[in-house]
């Protein structure tokens, strides 16, 4: 009697198998749902990440764009001149122009410098000239002592004073003490077919004379630039005559992540950001 009750009958075994199958199916389904959920959330996070990365990088450069800083303002192409560094002229002699350079040359990323601009303090306009830093960099002279004679406080900051050369050749005249110069980069942002993630658009960035590099992937087909020229409305394209009137840029950075399996749908992320240019009146 004890031996019989300890064993399994066929029916008991079948029932156990059926119940076990049902349980395993339930558990498997749970795992499957979790996996799909994880994949979808990962895609969503990547889409968010792409959109944010693209906009934050762009915003950092666009916020500082000065007056007259737009070169091209199209629906999918944007070229701007933004400051790498601002200089204030602290001393001028017949052959030398000495400037204050926040952070000194060691902190200057000169590979991106496309030229120099000179601020007209009466009109607020910048006069841009193309030149490399190697062309303008004056490594000799006595910048700190000369600027100190002109009234500059050079204490603990002699490395922040520098000589700039060939401004006379670039402009035909020399600046005076108190004039403001800007070393600028010329950056092109372009929305075009992604190389890294085929089937989507990517945001590409390139500095003057350099090839475009993909900065962010996964842009949807609706991604574009828009521009405000006063007022509250944004337009897709601005004519060259109105480039100087741009006071804000909107980057419609809608993102799309393609589904990795047939059971999923593409994940889209509607994202746009308005970047007001703080140095443009």
């Amino acid at each position, binding site marked *: 009697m004890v031996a019989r009750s300890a064993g399994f009958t066929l029916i008991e075994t079948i029932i156990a198998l059926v119940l076990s199958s049902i349980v395993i199916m339930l*558990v498997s389904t749970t795992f499957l749902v979790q996996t799909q959920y994880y994949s979808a959330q990962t895609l969503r996070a990547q889409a968010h990440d792409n959109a944010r990365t693209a906009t934050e990088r762009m915003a950092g450069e666009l916020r500082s764009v000065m007056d007259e800083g737009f070169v091209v303002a199209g629906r999918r192409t944007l070229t701007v001149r933004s400051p790498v560094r601002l200089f204030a*002229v602290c001393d001028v002699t017949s052959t030398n122009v000495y400037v204050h350079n926040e952070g000194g040359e060691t902190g200057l990323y000169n590979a991106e410098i496309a030229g120099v601009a000179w601020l007209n303090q009466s009109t607020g306009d910048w006069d841009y000239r193309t030149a490399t830093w190697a062309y303008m960099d004056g490594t000799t002279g006595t910048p700190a002592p000369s600027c100190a004679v002109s009234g500059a406080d050079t204490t603990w900051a002699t490395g922040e004073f520098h000589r700039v050369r060939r401004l006379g050749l670039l402009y035909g005249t020399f600046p005076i003490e108190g004039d403001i110069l800007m070393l600028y980069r010329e950056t092109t942002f372009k929305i075009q077919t992604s190389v890294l993630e085929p089937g989507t658009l990517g945001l590409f960035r390139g500095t003057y004379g350099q090839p475009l590099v993909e900065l962010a992937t996964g842009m949807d087909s609706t991604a574009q630039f828009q521009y405000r020229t006063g007022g509250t409305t944004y337009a897709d394209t601005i004519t060259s005559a109105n480039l100087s009137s741009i006071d804000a840029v909107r980057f419609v950075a809608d993102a799309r992540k393609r589904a990795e399996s047939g059971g999923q749908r593409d994940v889209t992320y509607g994202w746009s950001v308005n970047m007001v240019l703080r140095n443009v009146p």
Partner: protein
Amino acid sequence: MNRADRVDTGRRGGFVLALVVMMLFAISVAAATGYLVVNSEFDMARGADEGAEALAVARAGLHRFVAEQIGVVGDSVSYAVGGGVAMITTRKIASQDSITDLYYVRSEATVSSPFTPSSPARRVVGAYAWHHRRPLRHWAAAMITATAVYAQNSGGLIDGNDQNSALDCPGGNATDITGAIARTTTGQQSGGVLAGSPTGKQWSGGFAQMYDSVGLRWDVLSDPTFPVDFEGTPPSWASLPSDSFPVSRVNGYFNPGSSWNGRGVLIVNGELDAGSSWSWNGIVLAGSVDDIHEGTIRGMLIGGLDGTNPYSTVYWRGSIRYYSCYVYEANESLSYLELLSDTEFEIF
């Protein structure tokens, strides 16, 4: 309980335990997945928010410093702005002329949260600014936007001739200035004295012409929220260096007596109606002045800055004499910064 029942119970318990373990595992996987996704999103959003806030704090700190700056430019100051701190440092870059210097103003902001106390978000902005030293122009000993100003017959004295010599201070023995400026008439009654070079001028262009000529930021200086050295109470002179010329302000009607004797810049954001025992060395700026005025000013008075003076004729019964040294020192306290437009940039 017999033996068979105990065996049966043990077998069911093992099967349920396996199920529970599997379900707990599934739930754990789901929870971990959800946590990772939410946490990474949260980190990204928080980082972006803190970065944006740090930039806003840096800009706010820079603009606040420039707006509130008066007198000598300090080397550094920090402000608590929003959820962060902005540290402002300045450096003089050049002297354009004797009254205009160029400064570099740098604002470094940090914003930290309880989640990232050791790695706060940091942003730096810089800008150039002109420092306008001694901005007030020396036009007249008494400049009032009234129709007429008279040195009254009972000993009234308005004198634009410099009372200081070159030995008194570096700017002493300055060029003599006009005695009084009014809109249409200046003069002296019998027994009163109006002196200067010339004794009087009429600026019929009215308030706007007179206001625009002096180079004052009256809208800023008269704003009760604009910080000055002393507000509403006279400075404690015993605790101040003898060469200090602070900025004091009184809001509304002001009838000073001897308790307000002092020096520096006195701003009256209302009507000035001084008593005979009052004396001031330096610059007095008033929204309006009473029609019959007493007291002694060694320096300069500019009255009626709120608009055309409400009293069309002002009779000066007291004494105003131009002391260039007092004016020079007080004027230094009015120095201010003016941000150069188009020069604010973010330092990466």
